[in-house]
């Protein structure tokens, strides 16, 4: 990387805010999808929105690609650096700027962790609803980029339903205010594309979020079943009775065993467990719970355990939330997949996954948000066996195709990132992708903001404003101008 450019970067961030040593850069080579790596030319760690803006302006002027990064917990390579580009690490922008309980709003910087918000507003009987499994460490900025979900999406929605406004630096270095604390601000709903844009449209420097009042009552049921199919039928029957639970999670035997070995949630010895959580007014929860209980019994639940207090509930959720990490207890390596199917297609797709498991010779654990059809198959492999990692990756991709064929999606919450961009044409036509690309070009005509993500093939926008300048990706021979 050009020394003069590095000097300029160093001059706009506080001391210690520019990293260029190989050892320092190493940390930033990947996000939580560790098999995709690239070495950035520099990492900047701004402490203010002004510094972010100054860095982006420099990148824009010099035509240097940049990638914003939160806490690096992403599972799709969304924060994978561009080789020799700049990584803007936002972990030092970590202040909660405003807590407004009467209006149920908080305003935070992007480096604040998801759980920190709930912790801060909890004494007031409030919480922040999106709860990705990584919520202890993941950042709000990353949540906004990925439109993160969690276990309670079916009833409470995703990040996009809870972000009311952002301040962001556009790829040309302009600072913009989009949305705000009040609802219905006039103009196009740009927030709806920024949330979930995987860092390809802007760098968010501040966000105003909606918080919720804790429900009057919460009831969590842990039920064991003889098979995933029976547990799945119980879910259908619950929804068929007009109940939308706050969460419905399912785990199979392999993931139950892993969770047990890791965090001892004391799950029953069963082929499948279902966690059903109801929340709301006491009377509603009581009435609906009676229905849920009878449905589970009718579907042959082998055990039922009801958590009525916080500690008990936390123990059950610990088992579920630790499921990914826990796989390390039963397999040397594993590949986490994220796909979605219409809920009613779950049995069909799970059957295909079981056949694939038998055919591939790799064990596949299944954890899923059963209420919304979001599957997280965990493909176990041993990286020390030559070829097995590649085999696992192929198996994981095949599961994605099952999801798309069933009318679902190739990602429910982990994002497309660098990992799944090649699969986008399986789900979207060229025209669909072209329409999305119009948004990309409106925000980032020069293609410098997290390039190489989401879209299957790198492409340029044409009519880049200003004098013609060879794009860095063109220079590298990665893309052609058309």
């Amino acid at each position, binding site marked *: 990387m050009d020394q003069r450019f590095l000097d300029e970067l160093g001059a706009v961030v506080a001391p210690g805010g520019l990293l260029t040593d190989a050892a320092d850069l190493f940390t930033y080579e990947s996000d939580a999808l560790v098999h995709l790596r690239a070495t950035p030319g520099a990492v900047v760690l701004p402490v203010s929105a002004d510094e972010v803006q100054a860095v982006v302006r420099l990148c824009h002027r010099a035509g240097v690609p940049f990638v914003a990064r939160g806490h690096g917990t992403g599972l799709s390579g969304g924060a994978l650096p561009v080789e020799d580009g700049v990584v803007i690490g936002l972990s030092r922008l970590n202040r909660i700027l405003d807590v407004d309980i*009467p*209006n149920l709003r908080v305003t935070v910087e992007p480096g604040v962790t998801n759980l920190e918000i709930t912790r801060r507003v909890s004494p007031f*009987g409030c919480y922040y609803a999106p709860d990705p499994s990584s919520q202890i460490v993941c950042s709000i900025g990353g949540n906004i980029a990925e*439109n993160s979900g969690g276990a309670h999406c*079916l009833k409470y929605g*995703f990040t996009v*339903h809870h972000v009311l406004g952002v301040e962001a630096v556009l790829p040309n270095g302009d600072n*913009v205010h*989009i949305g705000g*604390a*009040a609802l*219905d*601000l*006039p*103009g*196009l*709903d*740009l927030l*709806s*594309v920024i949330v*979930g844009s995987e860092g390809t449209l802007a760098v968010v420097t501040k966000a105003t979020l909606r918080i919720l*009042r*804790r*429900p009057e009552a919460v009831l969590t049921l842990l039920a064991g079943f003889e098979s995933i199919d029976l547990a799945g039928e119980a879910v*259908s029957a619950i*929804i068929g009775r*007009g*109940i939308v639970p706050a969460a419905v999670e399912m785990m199979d035997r392999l993931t139950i065993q892993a969770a047990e070995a890791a965090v001892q949630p004391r799950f029953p010895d069963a082929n499948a467990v279902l966690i059903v959580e109801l929340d*709301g007014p*006491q*009377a*509603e929860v009581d*009435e*609906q719970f009676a229905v849920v209980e009878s449905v589970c019994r009718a579907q042959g639940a082998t055990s039922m355990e009801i958590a009525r207090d916080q500690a008990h509930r936390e123990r059950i959720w610990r088992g579920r939330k630790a499921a990914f990490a826990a796989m390390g207890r039963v397999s040397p390596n594993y590949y986490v997949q994220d796909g*979605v*199917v*219409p*809920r*009613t297609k779950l049995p069909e797709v799970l059957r295909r996954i079981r056949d694939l498991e038998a055919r591939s010779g790799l064990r596949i654990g299944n954890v899923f*948000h059963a209420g*919304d*059809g*979001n599957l997280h198959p965990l493909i176990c492999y041993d990286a020390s066996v030559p070829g097995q990692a590649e085999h696992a990756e192929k198996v994981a991709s095949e599961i994605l195709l099952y999801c798309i064929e069933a*009318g*679902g*999606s190739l*990602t*429910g*919450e982990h994002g497309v990132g660098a990992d*799944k961009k090649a699969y*986008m044409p399986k*789900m*979207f*036509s060229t025209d*669909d992708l*072209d*329409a999305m690309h*119009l*948004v990309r070009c*409106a925000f980032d005509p020069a293609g410098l903001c997290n390039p190489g993500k989401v879209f299957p093939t790198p492409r340029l926008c044409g009519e880049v404003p200003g004098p013609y300048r060879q794009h860095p990706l063109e220079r590298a021979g990665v893309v052609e101008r058309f």
Partner: protein
Amino acid sequence: MASSSLDTIAQAAHARWGTPASRAAGPADAILDQLPAVVLEPTTVPMLADMLRWANADKVAVVPRGAGTKLTWGRTPPRIGAVLATTRIDGSIDHCAGDLTATVPAGARLEEVNAALAREGQWLPLDPRLADRATIGGIVATNDSGPRRQKHGTPRDLIIGAEMALVDGRTAKAGGRVVKNVAGYDLARLLCGSFGALAIITRATFKLAPRPPASRTIVASAPQARPLADLALALLSSPLTPAAIELQSRPDRLLLRFETTEAAANQQAAAAEALCGAHGVDASMVSGDAEAAVWREHQADLSSADGTLVRVAVLPAQVGDVLGHAERVAAQHALECRVAGRIALGVVYARIGAGEHTRPSPESLRAAIDALRQNAWARGGSAVVVSVDPAIGHVVDPWGDVGDALPLMRALKARFDPNGILNAGHGPGNI
């Protein structure tokens, strides 16, 4: 815009599609006294896309239309070449009850969609103005909603996928048919509230809700609006989960609706009644036919085309002050002004000068809107003119200042609609 006369446009369209897909405009097709050159009523999505391609190539200004219930909202395009209607396009409602989703054609009326979904005990829980006539496409394009927004949100909160026709005649989709999905940019949500300025929505997929088994409404009355605003805030910090918290004006009342199971509806209504008592507000509970009548009347009031309707959005805790301010503004300009709506969300609707005798002068209307707008801006909010009294017409800027993201909105508009044919000047922020 093209220099071709309205006649030329009509002839070109007739020659291509003939009747009935292309027809001359009648008085019912006029928008604020402007008559389009031609009315296009395609019967298929490819035909609609083809019409759009033609309009784009010939630079014919297009106004997309569903039932036509909201065409006077915002500013009318300076020229209307063609009205392009979605209502004749064939298409069925694809209801996946087990998945709690439905895919519906843009031209379908919300009422007919909900009648179909009711067969499985589900619904699309939107209750916008003129819900009996409004189409899905129009509701999405304006992101319109009603009292149940308190619990269920707006179309933007419920949409999970959309299909659209682009100006170059191509069709594209975004999102999908599953509730949870983060693949690609969320164009479906971007289209919500876009006023047809980017693309024409042809189909939309929504996440649905089960129909609640029971409903109760508390009618809370007070001599002034202020204690009602305080009550609305108190509700927000209570564990109650109302489906609607609506302010009514003259008489000043709050309508608190609880839609849940039978026992929970009764329990919550009782708790709400107690809360009213604690605030010194009279309350009574209605259910069944009486409840339906209360809401029918309120919806009719919200849907009325009388006067000029201004949406004022601020923080919930600021609504009390905004109500007081609106009253002072009305008095100062000798205007008739009533404020109603989603008080606990901070979104209320001021209806100014309804009725023949109370029609304000253009100057006083403009002054009043400016005053409401300044006051809302100072609080980080906004005041947008939803619909304007046609007799007063264009004296007001419907949107006001859109802020520093306006160039970005214009850039988006330029990418999607480079010739500016789609509802030109009518989109949010006059894009």
